[in-house]
C-alpha cells in the first residue's frame, strides 16, 4: 500500500515548498512550522512504513522494487530510439519512475530522518531570523530534490534531483544574501558543482549510449551480463566521468573548495546539506553505478586514491582552523574522502555504512556547533570560546558523543564504519593499497586530534570569551536540544547495526546491502589476469588476529590524537599558541591558509590575480589569446586587406588611365578629333537639308536637260 504510492514521499516536502512559495509571506511562523515540518515528518513516517513493507516483500532477497508512474521523456511506445555505440537501436525512454532497493532504503531513511530532526532544530535556531518562511521553503524544496535523487530509477531523474539539490544548496548558502561573502560562497558552490555536473551528465549519457537504457536496473544488468571485459575503455571513461560528478557534489579533490565556504549559510543548512545528505549524493551515485565501476578497475583506483588524498588533505587543514564550523566542514570533506576510499577499494557496503553513521554524528556535531554559536550570540571563532562545559551541558554532552563517534572510539558509530573501511583497504589483494591504508590511518589520528582540539577549545579550556558574550551564554531551547539528543543516541547506536564478525556480531547492515553489490556477475576476463572482481568476501582469508591488531591500532590512533589535543589545549588561555605554529611556523601558515588552494585557483582559473592590468592563469591566457587574436591575427588580416586595397587602387588607376585612357578612349578621341570637319556639315536644321536636296535635284535636272 505504501510501496505503491512511493512517489508521494518526495511530493510531501514539494507541497510544503510550493505552499511557502505562493503563500509563505502571509503565513504566521506557527503555520510555517506546521506545514513544512509537518510535511517532512509525514514523509519520514511514510518512508519508514514503505521500507518496512519493502523488506517484508523482498524477504531478504534484496530484489529492487520499481514503480514507474509515467513516461517522462520519450514516446513510451518505442517510436523514439537511441542509436547505440554498436549501431543497434534502443528505445529512448525516461520514466518518472521510482526504485526502492536496500541502497535507496538506507538513504531514504536517514535523509528523511536526519532531515526531520534538522527541520525541528531549525524552528528553534531560526526563530529570530528574517525570511523564516523562505528558509523553510528552501529546506522543503531541498528535501524534495534529495528524495527525487535517491528514489529515481534512472540517471535522468536522478539528475533532476542532483541539479535540484545544487540549486537549493545555492539558495541556502546565499540565504543571508545581503552579506557579500554569503552570495560569493553561494556562487562558488554553484559554479564548482556545475563543473562536476558536466562530468556527471557526460558519464550518464555515455552509459546510455553504450548500454542502451536510462534505468539503473537495466544498466546494472547489462554491465553484469558478461558481455563486457574488465577494463573496457568506454566503461572506464563513463565511470571516470561519473566520478567527476561525484567529486563536485561530494566535495572531493580538486572540487572540494566550495564546501568549506558553504559554511556561510545558516548552521542547520550546514548540517542538513553539507554534512548529512547532499554531499553524500556523490557516494550514492557511485554506489548505485557499482556494476559499472567494478568493470573499470582503473576508475576504481582513481576513486580510491582521490578519496584517500582528500581525506588526509582536508584533515590536515582542519587541524588549525579557528572557525568552529570550518573545522567541521573540513572534517566532512575528510570523511567523504573515507567513503570514496571505501568505494574505490570495492568495499561499497563499508562506504555506504560510513555514510550512514556519518550522517548522524556529523549532523549532531553541526547542530551542536550551531547550538554553541547560538549560545555565544553568533560568535564562531573558537579562540573566543572556552569553558562552556557547564554552561550548556546538553550541547556539551551530545557533542562529546559526536566527537567520540567521529574519532572512532569503541563502541561509538564511527569506530565500526571507519574501521571497516580501513580493514577493507588493508585486505585488498595488492600491497600498494597498504599505502592508502596508511593514509587513512594517519587521517584517523588527525581526525581525533582536530575534533578533540575543537572540544577542548570550546568546552574545557579556560574561558576566553568577551564579557558581553559571557553574560549572554544560555542553553538552547528544547526544539534544538531534543534533536541533538536523538542524534546522539543514533551516533552511539548506528554502528551496532554492522557489528563485525570478528567481534561476535553478524554485520547485518552489509547483509542487507549485499544484493545491491552482488558479485555473482559473469565477467569476461582477459588472458592471464585475475578474475577477481574488486573486493570480494575476503575476511575468511585473513585471520581475525590481523583485524584485531588493526582495530587496536585505530583505537590507539584515536587515543593518541585525543592525548595530543588534551596536552596542547587543556590549559589554552588568552593568547594561547598553536603547537604546530610553535614547532613549524611555515607548515602552520601553509595549513592555516588551506594549502593556498583558493589562492592557487585564483592564480590559475578565476583571473582575480593580476600583474598590473594583466590577468593570470586561464583567464589571463584567455585574455592574452583574445589580445593575440584581436591584434596579431586580425591585425594580419587587416594588413592583408590594406595591402589588397593598395594594390587594387594602383590597379584601378592603371585600368582607368592607361587601359581605358590610352587603349580604349585614345582611339575614340582621335576619331572624334578627325571627324570634326565632317561634323560641320551636320548643323541639324532639317529644312536646310531639304533645301540642299532640292538644290541638288535641280542641279541634276539642269545638267541633264542642258548638257
Amino acid at each position, binding site marked *: 500500500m505504501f510501496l505503491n504510492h512511493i512517489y508521494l514521499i518526495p511530493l510531501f516536502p514539494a507541497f510544503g515548498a510550493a505552499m511557502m512559495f505562493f503563500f509563505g509571506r502571509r503565513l504566521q511562523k506557527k503555520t510555517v512550522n506546521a506545514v513544512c515540518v509537518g510535511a517532512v515528518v509525514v514523509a519520514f513516517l511514510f518512508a519508514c512504513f514503505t521500507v518496512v513493507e519493502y523488506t517484508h516483500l523482498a524477504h531478504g532477497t534484496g530484489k529492487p522494487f520499481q514503480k514507474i508512474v509515467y513516461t517522462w521523456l520519450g514516446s513510451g511506445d518505442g517510436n523514439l530510439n537511441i542509436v547505440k555505440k554498436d549501431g543497434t537501436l534502443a528505445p529512448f525512454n525516461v520514466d518518472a519512475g521510482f526504485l526502492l532497493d536496500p541502497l535507496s532504503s538506507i538513504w531514504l531513511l536517514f535523509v528523511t530522518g536526519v532531515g526531520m530532526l534538522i527541520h525541528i532544530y531549525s524552528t528553534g535556531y531560526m526563530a529570530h531570523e528574517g525570511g523564516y518562511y523562505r528558509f523553510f521553503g528552501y529546506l522543503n524544496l531541498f528535501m524534495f530534490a534529495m528524495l527525487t535523487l535517491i528514489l529515481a530509477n534512472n540517471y535522468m531523474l536522478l539528475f533532476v534531483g542532483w541539479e535540484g539539490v545544487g540549486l537549493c544548496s545555492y539558495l541556502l548558502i546565499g540565504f543571508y544574501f545581503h552579506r557579500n561573502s554569503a552570495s560569493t560562497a553561494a556562487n562558488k558552490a554553484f559554479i564548482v558543482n556545475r563543473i562536476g555536473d558536466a562530468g556527471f551528465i557526460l558519464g550518464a549519457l555515455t552509459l546510455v549510449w553504450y548500454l542502451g537504457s536510462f534505468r539503473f536496473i537495466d544498466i546494472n544488468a547489462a554491465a553484469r551480463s558478461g558481455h563486457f571485459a574488465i577494463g573496457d575503455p568506454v566503461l572506464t571513461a563513463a565511470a571516470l566521468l561519473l566520478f567527476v560528478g561525484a567529486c563536485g557534489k561530494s566535495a572531493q579533490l580538486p572540487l572540494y573548495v566550495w564546501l568549506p565556504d558553504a559554511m556561510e549559510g545558516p548552521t542547520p543548512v550546514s548540517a542538513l546539506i553539507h554534512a548529512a545528505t547532499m554531499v553524500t549524493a556523490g557516494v550514492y551515485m557511485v554506489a548505485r553505478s557499482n556494476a559499472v565501476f567494478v568493470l573499470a578497475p582503473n576508475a576504481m583506483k582513481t576513486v580510491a586514491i582521490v578519496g584517500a588524498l582528500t581525506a588526509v588533505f582536508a584533515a590536515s587543514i582542519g587541524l588549525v582552523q579557528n572557525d568552529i564550523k570550518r573545522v567541521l566542514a573540513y572534517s566532512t570533506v575528510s570523511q567523504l574522502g573515507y567513503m570514496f576510499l571505501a568505494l574505490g577499494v570495492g568495499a561499497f557496503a563499508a562506504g555506504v555504512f560510513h555514510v550512514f553513521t556519518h550522517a548522524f554524528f556529523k549532523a549532531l556535531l553541526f547542530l551542536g556547533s550551531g547550538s554553541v554559536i547560538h549560545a555565544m550570540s553568533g560568535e564562531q571563532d573558537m579562540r573566543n570560546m572556552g569553558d562552556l562545559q557547564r554552561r550548556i551541558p546538553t550541547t556539551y554532552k551530545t557533542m562529546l558523543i559526536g566527537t567520540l563517534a567521529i574519532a572512532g572510539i569503541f563502541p561509538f558509530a564511527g569506530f565500526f564504519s571507519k574501521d571497516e573501511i580501513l580493514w577493507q583497504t588493508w585486505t585488498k589483494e595488492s600491497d600498494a593499497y597498504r599505502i592508502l591504508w596508511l593514509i587513512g590511518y594517519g587521517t584517523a589520528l588527525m581526525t581525533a586530534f582536530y575534533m578533540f582540539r575543537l572540544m577542548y577549545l570550546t568546552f574545557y579550556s579556560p574561558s576566553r570569551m568577551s564579557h558581553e558574550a559571557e553574560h549572554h551564554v544560555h542553553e538552547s531551547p528544547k526544539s534544538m536540544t531534543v534533536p541533538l539528543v536523538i542524534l546522539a543516541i543514533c551516533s552511539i547506536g548506528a554502528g551496532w547495526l554492522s557489528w563485525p564478525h570478528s567481534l561476535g556480531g553478524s554485520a547485518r547492515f552489509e547483509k542487507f546491502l549485499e544484493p545491491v553489490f552482488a558479485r555473482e556477475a559473469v565477467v569476461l576476463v582477459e588472458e592471464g589476469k585475475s578474475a577477481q572482481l574488486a573486493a570480494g568476501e575476503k575476511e575468511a582469508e585473513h585471520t581475525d588476529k590481523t583485524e584485531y591488531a588493526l582495530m587496536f591500532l585505530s583505537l590507539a590512533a584515536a587515543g593518541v590524537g585525543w592525548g595530543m589535543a588534551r596536552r596542547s589545549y587543556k590549559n589554552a588561555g588568552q593568547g594561547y599558541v598553536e603547537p604546530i605554529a610553535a614547532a613549524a611556523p611555515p607548515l602552520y601558515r601553509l595549513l592555516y591558509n588551506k594549502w593556498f588552494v583558493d589562492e592557487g585557483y585564483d592564480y590559475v582559473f578565476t583571473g582575480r590575480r593580476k600583474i598590473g592590468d594583466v590577468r593570470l592563469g586561464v583567464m589571463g591566457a584567455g585574455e592574452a589569446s583574445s589580445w593575440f587574436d584581436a591584434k596579431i591575427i586580425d591585425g594580419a588580416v587587416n594588413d592583408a586587406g590594406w595591402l589588397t586595397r593598395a594594390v587594387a587602387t594602383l590597379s584601378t588607376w592603371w585600368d582607368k588611365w592607361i587601359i581605358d585612357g590610352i587603349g580604349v578612349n585614345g582611339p575614340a578621341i582621335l576619331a572624334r578629333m578627325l571627324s570634326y570637319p565632317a561634323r560641320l556639315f*551636320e*548643323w*541639324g536644321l*532639317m*529644312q536646310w537639308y531639304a533645301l540642299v536636296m532640292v538644290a541638288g535635284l535641280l542641279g541634276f535636272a539642269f545638267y541633264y536637260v542642258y548638257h
Partner: protein
Amino acid sequence: MVPITTLHYLVVAAALFALGVIGVLTRRNVVIVLMAIELILNAVNLNLVAFSRMWGNLHGQLFAIFIVVDAAAEAAVGLGILIAFFRNKETINIDEIDLLKW
C-alpha cells in the same frame, strides 16, 4: 473649248509640287510641313492618274490609291511623333528639332 490634255495635268501637278516643296522648305510649323508633304504626294498622284488615262492602263490609278493609303499612314505616324515630341519640348518649331545632328 480647248481639250484638256495630259500636258495640262502635268502643269497643274508641277505647280502643286512646287508649292509643296516651297512649303516644306519655308514653313517652321511641322504640321504645315506635313501638309506640304501631302501636297507633294498628291502632285505625284495627279501625274500617275494622268499618265494612266493617257495610256489607258489602270496600273497608274492603282498606284495612286496605294499612295493615298501611304499618305494616310505617314500622316498618322508623323503626327504621333509630333505629339510625343511636343510632350517633351513643348514646341513644334522645326528649327528646334535638331537633336540628331551628331
